[in-house]
């Protein structure tokens, strides 16, 4: 019944047909699972822009690139309470920070309660010519020229890819994000396409050392590192820290 075996040590389990059937079934099921994992990335990418369909603009808010602050983008320059936020647009924890706290930070800007400086930098990029952290931060600087940094910044987190360096933040998609939230000028298009703001991104990234920032997201309140106590990012905890610093 079974084909002859040269070596008796060779394993046998039931009849060989059943054995190979089981092996084949397991392999098939697992291969199908692996296939769906492999294709999940593209599906997620295509679905991302839907998040911008009901985008609420903050309106135009001018921020200035300050070369003395490592080319950070400063809002309400000169107010006593100073907040610095260091972020990489690809960083998933930055999204966890921005989702609950970003709105409060923006309200501090619009209500002129604090000076907020955003440092969009490249921390997680893979260093290739298509480095997506650089491309995204570059585009954010381009949006700052249109007084739309805060809108673009929020939009980038709204569509953030779950997988870093997946090729999602390319020129075409960055322009699409701009278009979806109403940044359509040719200066913006040229700026994103030519990566005109790369010097700013480099300056912001290099300033990490000067500020003692080792990762993203990092938030400084009046120059002092904000260390959260709760496991997640809690807007009330952050608010309390800002209000304590404002006194």
């Amino acid at each position, binding site marked *: 019944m079974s084909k002859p075996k040269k070596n008796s040590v060779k394993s046998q389990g039931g009849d060989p047909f059943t054995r190979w059937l089981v092996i084949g079934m397991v392999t098939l099921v697992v291969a199908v699972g692996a296939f769906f*994992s492999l294709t*999940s990335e593209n599906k997620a990418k295509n679905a991302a822009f839907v998040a911008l369909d009901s985008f609420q603009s903050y309106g135009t808010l001018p921020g200035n690139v300050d070369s003395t602050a490592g080319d950070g983008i400063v809002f309400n320059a000169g107010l006593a309470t100073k907040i610095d936020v260091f972020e990489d647009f690809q960083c998933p924890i930055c999204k966890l920070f921005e989702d609950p706290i970003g709105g409060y930070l923006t309200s501090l800007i619009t209500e002129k309660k604090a000076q907020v400086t955003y440092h969009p930098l490249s921390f997680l990029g*893979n260093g290739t010519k298509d480095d997506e952290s650089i491309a995204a931060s570059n585009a954010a600087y381009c949006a700052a020229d249109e007084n739309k940094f805060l809108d673009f910044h929020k939009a980038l987190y709204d569509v953030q890819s779950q997988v870093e360096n997946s090729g999602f933040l390319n020129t075409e998609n960055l322009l699409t994000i701009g278009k979806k939230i109403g940044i359509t000028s040719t200066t913006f298009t040229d700026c994103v396409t030519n990566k005109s703001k790369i010097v700013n991104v480099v300056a912001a990234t290099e300033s990490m050392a000067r500020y003692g920032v080792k990762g993203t997201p990092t938030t400084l309140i009046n120059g002092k590192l904000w260390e959260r106590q709760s496991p997640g990012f809690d807007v009330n905890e952050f608010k309390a820290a800002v209000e304590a610093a404002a006194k």
Partner: protein
Amino acid sequence: MKNFLITKQEWITTIFRVGFGAFLLYAGGIKAFDPAASANATAAYKILPTELAHNAGYILPWLEVALAIFLILGIFIRPAAIASALLMVMFIGAIASVWARGMLIDCGCLGGGGAIDPSKATEARIAYALDIVRDAAFVGMCLYIFKYPYGRFSLEKKPETTTQASEDQQ
């Protein structure tokens, strides 16, 4: 000890097979159902080019699941044992490599993964050491299973050497 490893071989093989298999099934399972995190975790090692690393992150968990099922059912035991041992050696190499390069990441062995808070540097190094020790123990278990593949509750049974041999020669 040596004696114990041989006299109780059937049971030791079974415990190693099912124990390691269960761990592998768990480790592979949670990663297989969170493919994005797994892709990020492999990319965080910065060993493979990004795209390859992502694909490895999508496939490796399923490979772990397959090996786990083979080990638990006790089918295809020897190939599964040697493949698992190689996989563990690869993980040890990868963790040692990030450690040596002074990078701070979560190994993503049991889900999660990616860069970690620099203030947790000491914890990260302890975690690297523990992960390497754990994986090395798994390599040992796999090699034992490879040497003695037959135990209890296994679809593959020990061939009866003499009768089998004579039958084969008919």
